[in-house]
């Protein structure tokens, strides 16, 4: 524990209203292997060759709920392209998540981070926290806080990562 204690780490910084993805400088990409609501296993490694948007969220997080529809609009706008969204829920019961999805249907997988171990590995201490992983499996961008993911600039940045 002490090793981590000794560091001064500003885990992230964001300027309100910046609305720009932050190029990643945070080091290696943590492993992600989680089950979705249907019990299927998802491994980040298995999505090699695709761009993956990993969004850490919870239903009690108002900004998370606010931005979720825009993530789905981004997904739809990239339909047919090698782009995947993994929405990682932090330690909530599946029944509560399903209740939310009944009100806000989403076209991507919701994964269960039951003990928040994956969120901690990604240092996702503030929600929502989103990471864009390139086709090579490395994190390219991150964003902490609510963002309109369907805006043109964000779309352009993510589309530029897609393999031809």
């Amino acid at each position, binding site marked *: *524990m*002490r090793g*981590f*204690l*000794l*560091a*001064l*780490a*500003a*885990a*992230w*910084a*964001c*300027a*309100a209203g910046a609305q720009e993805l932050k190029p990643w400088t945070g080091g290696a990409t943590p492993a992600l292997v989680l089950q979705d609501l249907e019990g299927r296993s998802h491994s980040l490694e298995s999505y090699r060759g695709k761009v993956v948007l990993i969004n*850490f969220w*919870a239903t*009690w*997080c*108002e*900004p*998370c709920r*606010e931005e979720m529809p825009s993530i789905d609009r981004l997904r739809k706008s990239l339909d047919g392209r090698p782009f995947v969204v993994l929405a990682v829920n*932090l*330690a909530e*019961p599946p029944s509560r998540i399903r209740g939310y999805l009944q009100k806000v249907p989403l076209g991507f997988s919701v994964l269960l981070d039951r*003990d*928040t171990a994956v*969120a*901690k590995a990604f240092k*996702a*201490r*503030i*929600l*929502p926290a989103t990471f864009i992983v390139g086709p090579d499996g490395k994190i390219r961008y991150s964003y902490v*806080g*609510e963002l309109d993911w369907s805006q043109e600039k964000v779309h352009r940045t993510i589309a530029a990562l897609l393999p031809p």
Partner: protein
Amino acid sequence: MSRRAFLKLSAAAAAGALPWRSVSATPDWHTYDVATKVTILKPQGASRAWIPLPLLDDTDWHRAIGNTWSGNAAKVQVHTDGKYGVSMLFAEWKEGEQAPVVEVTSRFMTRDRTVDFSRPNANVPRLSAADYAFYTSATELIPTDGIVRETARDIVKGQRTDVDKARAIYEWIVENTFRDPKTRGCGWGDIKTMLETKNFGGKCGDLNAMFVGLSRASGIPARDVYGLRVAPSIHGYRSLGVGAPVITKAQHCRAEFYAQGFGWVPVDPADVRKVVLEEPPGNLPVEDAKVEAARKRLFGGWEMNWLAYNMAHDVVLPGAGVKAPKLPYLMYINGETGGQRLDQLEPDAFRYEIRTSGVKA
């Protein structure tokens, strides 16, 4: 974050349902949300605020789930700072912001702690030499030499094990100190002055710091744990819980010592003295059954109707524009505006409010 979203979040937090202690996420874990809203009144120039966040490390009695924020800060950062790893949210507003405001909501889980001293566990990890040195060292307000060491030596004389020594220190504090309701906040833990003046009145920041200092001076690793009460006590102690969802002034610190075979052991002699002073009808004798029960329970047990923030001493606030001494600990919200540090113990003047709500499974 839009203002619309911020207002919606505020309304949601204000509507926290009661009673919030009766719900649980798993049979023995309880989940809570704590919403802390900070407003800088009469801002002048740049303004800043520092808000403690739940303990980062998962333990068998605490799990941090996540935090979210809203408001109009120009810059927000999470800092994990200093040798103790205190975790805090730093918010900064530029000059010209008329109504600086930030609200942080933290979700976490807790489970009650009890140590069975009749069953030592040989598999409990030993402290490393570095950790042993770290948790027996002095802080700026908790020296381990001079009168602290002399007092500790007298108290633990004849005691053999670390548990026995820690118990002797615990009992000494219960017998010799008292909760002083006039102490501002939780007290700053200047234990050398307390011992020199033989003024043993104070609150948790004083009395539990005394436990930590006397333990460290006896060679027993010990640490303060700073936090916040978030729910009523299920053991019938009105004084050891909160009775309403507004918990702005419910800060409370506890203490732990390390003993081989048991690991970190929770104690809270300050809360024994709180029961003496505050449990109805008030000013109970130490022999009162309620006091005796609390005295027994609080050596080796914590009811976890309480959020742990950190174990940090001598805290420097990152990004501060005002030169100020180190904080003895970070348990309150801190702020600055107009080139001046705001009084962290005056939430009405400074305007911060903390609310708690349980989460149904």
